[in-house]
């Protein structure tokens, strides 16, 4: 961004502490009146050096660290890490574990989307909706809590399986909660679709077309809202997603309204996936039989090699590149988070909009600073 300011222009620093932010980042805006002329994003305020830390932890310790890459998608982060190690070692989790992973990851997707929609609503001044969304999110969190024992950072996955089996009666409880959410979601969506002010604020605002989105490397709901049906679960199926029936939710417009619509649809789709998973889940062991892998695998040497794995995070494509040199610690881990490109796409997207729309657009992209900074 040019630092020179014309007489009718003004430089506004949004951040590092500001209400629109899920975590600290600095958005430098150059304004002419209410219009954003130029924007620049500066980040790294919560850069923790996770990649370096992972190089110095054993593989089992690494699971705990991957929880904290993004606090809203701990399970998918676990998944991609375990996936890498499993591919390097050459094991595959048994069917039951895979189904449990699918169930838990979809639950995690639901809670993440609920928070995302809620935070977006509060940035439009729609505080009540935020509280409603969080209310429903708490129900999902208590389900996750029931299985993993924690609300946000679970460390639930293990190499070749999962830490605990599902508790008794989990399926019934989960389905009753999810059906409830499904019903409430219909109400909320009705509200979103009919509220005139909401429509004025969202329809046609912050349009990210498919061409631009793919140029900017965006993935996840912002890309799908632009009409590109790109979902790792379909394009490059992992776990048992091949056996499950679901559709990739897309919209055409690519504006804020479409992004929120995609998230709402995805919550429904996730509920549908969980329903199927509960029907199809087989009995059996949690860890591959005949291998030393189990709940506790303290010292584990991974054969030398390298692997790049991708899973579908609530926010898009989560990739991990792992190089092993045959020791008990990874030689290099590169985390490719979905938010990093999304955040990078924010400054070009908000150019030419109003200050009030900056908040709405930034929130509708559902950024997670922690993951972008790592």
């Amino acid at each position, binding site marked *: 961004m040019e630092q020179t300011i014309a007489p009718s222009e003004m430089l506004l620093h949004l951040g590092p502490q500001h209400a629109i932010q899920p975590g600290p980042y600095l958005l430098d805006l150059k304004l002419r009146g209410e219009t954003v002329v130029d924007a620049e994003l500066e980040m790294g305020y919560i850069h923790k050096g996770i990649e*370096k830390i992972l190089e110095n932890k054993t593989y089992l310790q690494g699971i705990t660290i991957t929880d904290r890459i993004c606090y809203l998608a701990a399970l998918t982060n676990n998944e991609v890490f375990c996936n890498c190690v499993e591919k390097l070692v050459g094991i595959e989790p048994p069917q039951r574990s895979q189904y449990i992973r699918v169930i838990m990851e979809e639950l995690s997707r639901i809670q993440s989307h609920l928070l995302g929609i809620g935070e977006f609503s509060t940035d439009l001044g729609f505080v009540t909706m935020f509280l409603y969304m969080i209310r429903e999110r708490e129900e999902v969190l208590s389900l996750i809590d029931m299985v993993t024992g924690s609300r946000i950072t679970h460390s639930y996955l293990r190499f070749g399986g999962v830490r605990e089996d599902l508790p008794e009666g989990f399926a019934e409880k989960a389905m009753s909660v999810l059906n409830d959410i499904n019903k409430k979601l219909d109400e909320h969506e009705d509200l979103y679709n009919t509220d005139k002010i909401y429509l004025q604020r969202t329809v046609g605002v912050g349009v990210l077309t498919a061409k631009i989105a*793919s140029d900017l490397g965006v993935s996840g709901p912002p890309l799908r809202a632009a009409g*590109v049906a790109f979902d790792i679960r379909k394009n490059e199926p992992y776990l048992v997603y091949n056996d499950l029936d679901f559709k990739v939710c897309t919209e055409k417009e690519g504006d804020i309204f479409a992004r929120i619509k995609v998230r709402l649809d995805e919550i429904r789709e996730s509920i549908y996936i969980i329903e199927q998973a509960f029907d199809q889940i087989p009995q059996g062991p949690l860890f591959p039989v005949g291998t030393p892998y189990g709940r506790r695998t303290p010292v584990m040497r991974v054969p030398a090699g390298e692997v790049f794995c991708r899973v579908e995070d609530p926010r898009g494509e989560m990739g991990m590149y792992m190089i092993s040199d045959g020791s008990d610690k990874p030689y290099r881990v590169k985390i490719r988070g979905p938010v990093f490109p999304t955040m990078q796409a924010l400054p070009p997207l908000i150019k030419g909009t109003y200050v009030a729309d900056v908040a709405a657009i930034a929130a509708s992209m559902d950024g997670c600073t922690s993951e972008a900074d790592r």
Partner: protein
Amino acid sequence: MNANNIIKSLTEKFPNEILEPNVESNIRISSYVDKDAIVNVCKHLLETLEFDHLSCECGVDYPDRNEIEVVYHIASYSHPVVLTLKAKLDRDEPQIESIVSIYWNANWYERETYELYGVKYTNHPDLKPLLLPEDMLGEWPLRKDYEGFPNKTAKNLV
């Protein structure tokens, strides 16, 4: 789009620049690339092979070989093949041409690699630190011989 076809197309177009092509599985390919040819290879990938999504770009440090590798993971929105391109750079003075002109979102990845490994990207529009404060520039914390790592611990911890 088939993994073998992609490799074939690449090696035919760049016989001298693409080294050690390797088909790991039907959706994963890896290859070394000559560091001077990276922009041309990327252009070819984008224009003829539908690799329109730069998934990731990072550096890897090999102090015993005195090399820094820059790794590009190039994927596509339409087919599931991911190509891992690696370029070897001299560790003492790592320098490579930027691919921002082809993949726009390489911008931040390159800034990140610059501040963590010290890889200089020529023709980069705005090469400055992204994640670290300005005064940490030059420490290259993700290199294997970075000294500040285990020592800078909390005083009351073991």
